[in-house]
């Protein structure tokens, strides 16, 4: 058994400082025994011959200088097993559902290791989410990381759940799992997720990690890593296609900032630590497909933009790591449209490799480009109409204006339970485009118009 130290010299926020220890490893797991018999866990943040700094996951409440500290001699590992599916675990991996402890098949380091870029397979398998604005114009592919950029009070949770329910690769019956990690969300939100998982039976093929708003903020730093470790295990050892939902990245970054401040680090932009980019990359980059392995990890994180500001450091740095983003719009939400996804600032960088012949349909790209262009122009015209009135518009512009309204009403709007396959999505697209004069369809090849345009189709 390892030594217990009673040499705490200082406690500051979530950190404790110890001295006169034997050599302690960086990032080592620490157990702290409180005088009342309870145990808390922590992780070594800084270690030297003089002093060791430990961040305590469960918070430093109740700690004093009499606490005993034991160093485990090992970094934080997550016990993993195939039986994790269907389980609800705490933000640090302990069962919350009253079930037995997980009997580990393996214990994996939660920090993970970077995938060798040479071993990666460029993602190209189309995932059908059943949501037109995603499948049609911002297609998700296996191995991608595509966050939802949302704001407070917007229905991002509903969208995430709908995706978790409906996501599949058409025509393939491969094993599919969801790993859900909640970071600092409210109990109410967590209940909502859990209820929906149970209602739809999705829980059976899901692993849930819950760190709620009243759980210690420090724990949020390990929750997503636990979730991703579980996901990698299921993907690479059990050949499953895993969809990881992390919510909410903003809470994670707040915790990161809190830790930075407690360690008296030099702050970067808006007080967030300078290493936030690398730290976020170490989460997001754990999505991907590896050559020669059957499973894959796809990430769908939720990020609420403080003040709906897309240039805030959190969405900004995320956008530089993730392969696009789905932007939830307050304006559409106010109009009562669900899902209120604004396709214009949304983007999927890997879309082009996942669509077209052999993936979805040959005309997909052309239809998507055309819908995008027409909607962008129609939306621009709304501003003009506000100034000069509708009557001042040309016939062409009036058509485009109408198109923008119809696009929102028929393409964007769909029910929370409505699962549109890609054919349906594209047909709706064509029906809308058919309302425009054919001369405006400059983005679409004539051969596609002849084949798919409702006016030509036999």
């Amino acid at each position, binding site marked *: 058994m390892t030594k217990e130290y009673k040499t705490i010299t200082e406690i500051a926020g979530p950190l404790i400082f110890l001295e006169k220890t034997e050599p302690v490893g960086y990032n080592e797991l620490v157990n702290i025994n409180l005088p009342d018999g309870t145990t808390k866990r922590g992780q070594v*943040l*800084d270690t*030297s011959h*003089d002093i060791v700094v430990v961040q305590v996951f469960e918070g430093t409440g109740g700690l004093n200088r009499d606490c005993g500290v034991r160093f485990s001699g090992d970094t934080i590992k997550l016990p993993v097993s195939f039986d994790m599916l269907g389980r609800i675990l705490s933000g640090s991996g302990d069962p919350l559902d009253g079930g037995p402890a997980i009997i580990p098949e393996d214990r994996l380091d939660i920090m993970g290791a970077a*995938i060798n*870029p*040479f071993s*990666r397979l460029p993602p190209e398998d189309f995932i059908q989410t059943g949501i037109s604005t995603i499948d049609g114009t911002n297609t998700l592919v296996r191995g991608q990381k595509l966050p939802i950029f949302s704001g407070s009070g917007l229905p991002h949770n509903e969208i995430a759940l709908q995706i978790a329910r409906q996501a599949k690769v058409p025509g393939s019956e491969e094993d599919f799992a969801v790993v859900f990690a909640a970071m600092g969300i409210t109990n109410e939100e967590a209940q909502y997720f859990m209820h929906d998982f149970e209602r739809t039976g999705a829980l059976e093929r899901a692993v849930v990690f819950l760190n709620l708003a009243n759980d210690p903020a420090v724990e949020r730093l390990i929750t997503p890593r636990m979730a991703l470790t579980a996901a990698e295990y299921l993907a690479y050892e059990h050949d499953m296609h895993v969809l990881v939902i992390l919510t909410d990245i903003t809470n994670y970054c707040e915790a990161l900032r809190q830790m930075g401040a407690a360690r008296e680090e030099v702050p970067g932009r808006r007080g967030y630590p300078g*290493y936030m980019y690398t730290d976020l990359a170490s989460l997001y980059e754990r999505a991907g497909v590896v050559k020669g392995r059957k499973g894959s990890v796809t990430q769908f994180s939720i990020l609420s933009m403080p003040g709906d500001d897309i240039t805030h450091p959190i969405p900004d740095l995320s956008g530089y790591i993730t392969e696009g983003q789905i932007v939830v719009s307050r304006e559409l939400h106010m109009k009562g449209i669900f899902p209120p996804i604004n396709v214009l600032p949304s983007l999927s960088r890997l879309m082009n490799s996942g669509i077209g012949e052999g993936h979805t349909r040959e005309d997909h790209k052309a239809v998507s480009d055309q819908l995008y262009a027409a909607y962008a122009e129609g939306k621009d015209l709304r501003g003009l109409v506000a100034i000069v009135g509708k009557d001042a518009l040309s016939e062409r512009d009036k058509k485009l204006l109408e198109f923008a309204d119809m696009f929102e009403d028929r393409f964007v709007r769909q029910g929370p339970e409505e699962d549109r396959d890609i054919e349906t999505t594209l047909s709706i697209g064509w029906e809308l485009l058919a309302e425009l004069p054919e001369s405006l369809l400059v983005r679409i090849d004539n051969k596609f118009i002849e084949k798919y345009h409702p006016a030509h189709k036999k």
Partner: protein
Amino acid sequence: MEIKGEIFRISGPVVTIQGVNTRMYDVVKVGNEGLMGEVIGIEGDKSIVQVYEETAGVRPGEPVENLGMPLSVELGPGLLESIYDGIQRSLPILKDTMGDFIQRGVMIDGLDHEKPWEFKACVEAGDKVSGGSVIGVVKETHNVDHKIMIPPNISGTVAEIKEGTFTVVDTICTLADGTQIKMMHKWPVREPRPVSKKLPPNIPLITGQRILDGLFPVAKGGTAAIPGPFGSGKTVTQQQLAKWSDTEIVVYIGCGERGNEMADVLNEFPELEDPKTGRPLMERTVLIANTSNMPVAAREASVYTGITIAEYYRDMGYDVALMADSTSRWAEAMREISSRLEEMPGEEGYPAYLSARLSEFYERAGRVVSLGGLDGSITIIGAVSPPGGDFSEPVTQNTLRIVKVFWALDAKLAQKRHFPSINWLSSYSLYSKALTQWYDENVSPQWTELRDDAMDMLQQEAELQDIVQLVGSDALPPDQQLTLEITRLIREFFLQQNAFHPIDTFCPMEKQYQLLGAIQKFSDKANAALESGVLIQDIIKLKSKDELAKVRFEEDFDGSLKKVMDNMDKEFDSIKGELFAEGATQEVE
């Protein structure tokens, strides 16, 4: 000198060691696993080391060893066709030795020490040699002769030279003072390789891309920055440069980019064909890939690793194109390490030395006479990715202060399907003046004037477009309507270029000159016609000018251009003729 000591403190990638004599930038092996690190600070008897690998689990008291030399790369045959990480470890070999995930504590040689190469000597015993002297040649790949040089800091008289099959670590030459020369030598990455003289940037890098060569040329040995907003076709532009620019060697550094995108590059590059030789492009390419989740210190080093390899080939007398994608991610790495060192931050948290580091890097570009007396060059094309597309942020601003060429990729143009989507109003090149003489001698004395006229017209167009938006083009006077028509020709027939068309993908200078000249000729004729009273509508209706569009796709460029120009002459004659006839009829009446 003490070379062994122990770890005192660990905080992420920053490790403090004690009991070792170190010099700045010495490489040390840290801990029981021998993680690689670099000394970046010395305080009393302690040294601060940035470690290139993950440090979880490393304890104070573990041993460290100073390797006594700065971070270096191995230079010799076998560099080409390699895919390295930021510290010259081959990614395919890492995959073989430790699987799909990058583990730590693995040191592998940058070059294959066992592969035999056929060495042909070109000096004899008794010859005097010095740093940079070429002593022999190895056929590295099908089209690249790798010149074996005396390392820069060595000189003497050849005592013995061998010929035949050797590995890179075999001695092939012995100098009179006993110095043994191998095919490989090491060079510290942070130290620029010496040259005997820098040459002025007065030769353009010919890329065959009309907007680049024509309007915004970069000189051989010059520096260019390219911002990469999404969907603007950065990848295609870079690949076109790699494929067509008149350089012998391409070094591509993927620094801190997305794993999936890097995977795309690593998959696509090896499949590209070198259009000049029909051989794989990889045979003259070195790829360096460091994604955003690989250790930050190695990302910081990757840019130096790349430029050192580029300098090595430059010293052989080759023209090298170096692409760094992206320098913004590199700056992020500097920012992160600086914050770990608790340095006082400058603008937006970047270290105060950001500007100095960027300029030091770009300064390693240049056209030079090498120590061995050979002409070579490195052209740096650095991508910047400003957060939120905001060009006022420090990395972009500092880069723009240094580089001489800015190719403003514009997503809006890409959406309009104008490719290459380089915005002609916000791009610039400061080399145009320096290159004038070359154009006069090699293209035509008229070229510079032709180019300046075209630029001028495009500027005018931008102003006119503002008016057109308000009042419509019909309200403009005829000469301005003509300007709009001519600039349309420049944009659509000259600036636009189809990278996927077998002929249009590469447009030699001569063709560019002819094409721009043809548009100019139309402009002159149209202006003259306008003055003599021809209606602008009649000029706009002329068919021959639109036939110009197809000329650039024709195999028989000269023939078809001549045909179009003849047609143009006829058409102008005929509308003038009509005018004259009308005038004549009127007079009779």
